[in-house]
């Protein structure tokens, strides 16, 4: 793999937790903070840090509301996040195909 391939991979998504967050949000219409934490199996603090990074990049929206007296944080992927995720996924596929053709796994 050459240097340009690595550069083309979005650094915002190129972290396991953030990739996992976007994968869950891509497969759903929205998820609560609790669901994301349990699905990804990470801590509240860690998830919060990565979600903030994604929010700053404009890849996710985070809405806080109340269900009765209980606070609820709902996360959803944005159009920009969706496009970036698909680009990232396509790049991964290309990498696997190119490598697979050149070197045996």
């Amino acid at each position: 793999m050459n240097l340009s391939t690595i550069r083309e991979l979005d650094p915002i998504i190129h972290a396991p937790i953030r990739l996992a967050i976007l994968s869950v949000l891509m497969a759903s219409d929205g998820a609560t903070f609790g669901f994301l934490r349990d699905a990804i199996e990470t801590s509240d603090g860690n998830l919060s840090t990565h979600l903030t990074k994604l929010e700053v990049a404009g890849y996710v929206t985070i809405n806080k509301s109340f269900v009765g007296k209980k606070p609820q944080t709902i996360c959803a992927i944005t159009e920009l996040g969706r496009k970036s995720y698909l680009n990232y996924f396509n790049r991964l596929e290309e990498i696997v195909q190119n490598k697979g053709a050149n070197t045996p796994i």
Partner: protein
Amino acid sequence: MNMQQTQQEIKIIKDMIAKTRRETAESGNFFVAIGIFSMLMILMIGLLQKAHSSRWIIPALLVMVLGNMLIGFLFVKKATEKKGVWSYPKKICASIWIACGIPSLILIFVFPVYAIYPWSLVVVLTPLLMGMAVFACGVILESNLLAGSAFFWWIGGSAMAFIHGNMRLWVMMFIVLCGWILPGFALNRQVKKMRNTNES
């Protein structure tokens, strides 16, 4: 980034999508619940007819429709609040039920009251409308059985135009059984199987 890292990332994507799909998959419980409730209400209507208490039939019909709407609302609430995740297909299906539920309320309780058409036409028109909702949901949820069960609604609804009396209640119960309850159980089995496969 080496091949191992790439494969690890693809594994993360696959795992997360599988987990989300597992949680958002339609369990079929909604169809079983509205099916059983409707069956009980149809039985009650039959008993009211037998007891010559026909003035209670319209309130019983109202309870049946509003009860089904309440069950739908509770299922959506459970999905959004307790599970904490929801999917596009389920959101679209909920919209379809609302889109078909409101016209069915008008078909059952507005037009016959104003004598636009006789009450007997209600049992013909409502199943045709329900068939549309069941078919659309079946296609969206990728359940051929559910989509196929719409034919019970359409054929049953059409048959209602040619049959009369108590026979209509039996046909209606048969439609509900084949058009809601059985596909609901089949969906439930399918989801359980999917969850077991993913867990093992």
